[in-house]
Structures are given as C-alpha cells and as structure tokens.
C-alpha cells in the first residue's frame, strides 16, 4: 500500500532526542524560567514602588511594563512552545497575520477610546458616566477612590494620591 509522503519529516522521526540533547534542552528551559521569574519580580517591585514615588501612569512606566510583557511572551512562544525551532514558513504563518491584525486593532481602538473619553464627546452618549465621575471625583470618604488634584488635560495622566 502506497502512503502519502511529503518531505516534511514525521513526528516520530523529529520528536526524539538523546540523553545529552535532553540535558542541554533542560538547561535552556530552566534558564528561560529564571529570566522570566526575574522579570516578574522586577515588575512587582517597580509596581509596588510606583504609587509612593509618583511613577503611576507615567509614560516610561507603561512602556517598560509593556516591553517586559512582550519579552516574557516571546520567551514563552519561542522556547516553551518551541516555535523558535519550527520551520521558518510555519513561524510566519502563525505570527505575521496575528501581529499585523492586532497592531492595527490596538492603534485604532486606543485612538477611538481617547476620543470617546473626551468630556465633550461623552456627554451626549453616556449620561451615567457623568454620575459615576461626580461620585468618584467627590470621593465620598473612600480612601482609595478619592483623587487629589484635578485631571490635567493629558490623556495618559492618571490620578495621583
């Protein structure tokens, strides 16, 4: 009986490795783990220091966190999900459409979000928001939700304590 053959090796042939290769693979994986752990601890330390030092909501903090997140995501995809070891074509079939689509979505949605959050634009469409905002601005004695100082015009500025 003739079988279908392409020149892509079957799983049984690809997926086995020897004891020495295994040792090397394990060392790499543990290194990836330690790096990811270090990044997470670093993020938490920075995150817990941020409010008292007035770093919350600053642009550099956001860029730092998002950058570290993407680094961690890349580590998971490339080593844990071993996409780094796949054939080049397959890699791009998986990554290219996703990256293109999601970059565009992020861009357009955040632009629209900023627009619709502008006080001039939201009064027409979202009366409940006005009430919520008055509640939160007034604080009403809740220590967490009471922002001090007025909201400056800058969109990325968050309220500080």
């Amino acid at each position, binding site marked *: 009986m003739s079988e279908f053959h392409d020149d892509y090796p079957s799983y049984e042939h690809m997926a086995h490795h020897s004891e020495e290769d295994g040792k090397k693979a394990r060392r790499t994986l543990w290194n990836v783990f330690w790096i990811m752990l270090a990044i997470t601890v670093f993020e938490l330390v920075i*995150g817990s220091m941020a409010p008292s030092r007035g770093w919350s909501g600053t642009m550099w903090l956001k860029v730092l966190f998002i950058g570290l997140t993407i680094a961690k995501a890349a580590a998971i995809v490339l080593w844990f999900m071993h996409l780094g070891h796949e054939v080049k074509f397959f890699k791009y079939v998986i990554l290219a459409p996703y990256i293109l689509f999601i970059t565009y979505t992020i861009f357009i949605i955040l632009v629209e979000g900023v627009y619709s*959050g502008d006080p001039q634009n939201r009064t027409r469409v979202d009366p409940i*928001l006005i009430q919520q905002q008055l509640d939160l601005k007034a604080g009403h004695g809740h220590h967490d939700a009471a922002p001090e100082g007025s909201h400056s015009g800058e969109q990325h500025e968050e309220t500080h304590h």
Partner: protein
Amino acid sequence: MWFFLVSDALTFGGLLVSYGFIRHKYVDVWPKAENVFTHFPFVEQHLPLAYVGLMTFILIMSSVTMVLAVEAGHRNDKKKVIVWMFWTIVGGATFVGSQAWEWFHFIVGTETGALRHVWSQELGTYVEQTVYGANMVVNEYGVPQFANYFFFITGFHGFHVFSGVVINFIIFLNVIKGTYERRGHYEMVEKVGLYWHFVDLVWVFVFTFFYLL
C-alpha cells in the same frame, strides 16, 4: 493546535483591546489595582499585588514543569513524564483556586465600603447608598466597568485554565496507562503542552494590563 491557538489568541486580543478602549475612555476614574488587590492569605496587613505575584509564579512554574514533561516525552521517559505532568496539574489547580479566592475578596470588598449613586427601579432615579465590594452593577473601588472587565477576562482565562487542568488530567491518565508508550511517541503530551503554555501566555498579558498598568 497552533491554528486553534491563533484564533483563541485573537479572541483574547479582542477582549484586551476592548478593555483598553474603556480604560482610555474612563482614564480619570479608573481604579488602581494596588488599591484593590491588597489581600494575602493568613496575613492581616495589606500587601498590594503580593498574592497575584505568587499566582503568576505558580502559573509560570507549571508551564516549566509542562515543558519538562514534553522534554521527557522526547526521550520516552514515561516515569519523568508522569512526575512533571503531575506537578503541572497541581500548579494549574492551585492557580484556579487562587483566582477564586481573589474573586471572593473583590466581591466582598472592604469593611468601610464607599458611597455611590445606584439606580433605583422604584424611584426611577439614582439614589446615594454605601456599596461594598464589586459586582456587575456597582463597584466600590471605581467605575463598574472595571469589575465587568475583570470578571469577564479573568473569568474567561480562568475557564481556560480549568479546561487545561481537565485535559492535562486526561492525558496524565493515558500516560500512566501506557497508551503513548505503546504508540511510540508522546505527541499528545506536546499538544496539551502547547495549550497549557498558551494559557500561561495569556496570563502574562492579563497580569500586566489588569494589575500593573
């Protein structure tokens, strides 16, 4: 598996992006995670973000044990596959439990509560009252939209973790029974491994956008 993961990643991407939309719209009244998630089991004082840090550690750890199970499968080392898959399942179950605990504290809220305007059906207007914790309608910590998104996205992710634990357990039983040893390869372990890493991957993003930023 890869094509399923891409479509699932688009789902999560869509959810997180819509979260970004609302987040930017309500930028001046959005609650800060370090004021919301301050509890740690068996500890009286407030430790912001400590518990979610531990949860993240547990999930990354279980991702490592999973990849070690896959690696053992490449060497047809049945015993090691069993050991590592066992720890993966333990880690996943711990994570789901932790998430339930986190939800519990978010829903119950603080002792003081906060004054909010809540819609009253009888009066047909907004009435000021003290609310405790968060649900789909009111949120002590800030705008209700934060709670809506928190419940939906962490809930959706938590359900993924839960299904991952169940699937891992089924494969775990098959490994013990020797199904893959007879088959000659552990490809199924590798497939559930891919799914499991994807769940970890999503958490990395959820963690950043809900707890750090």
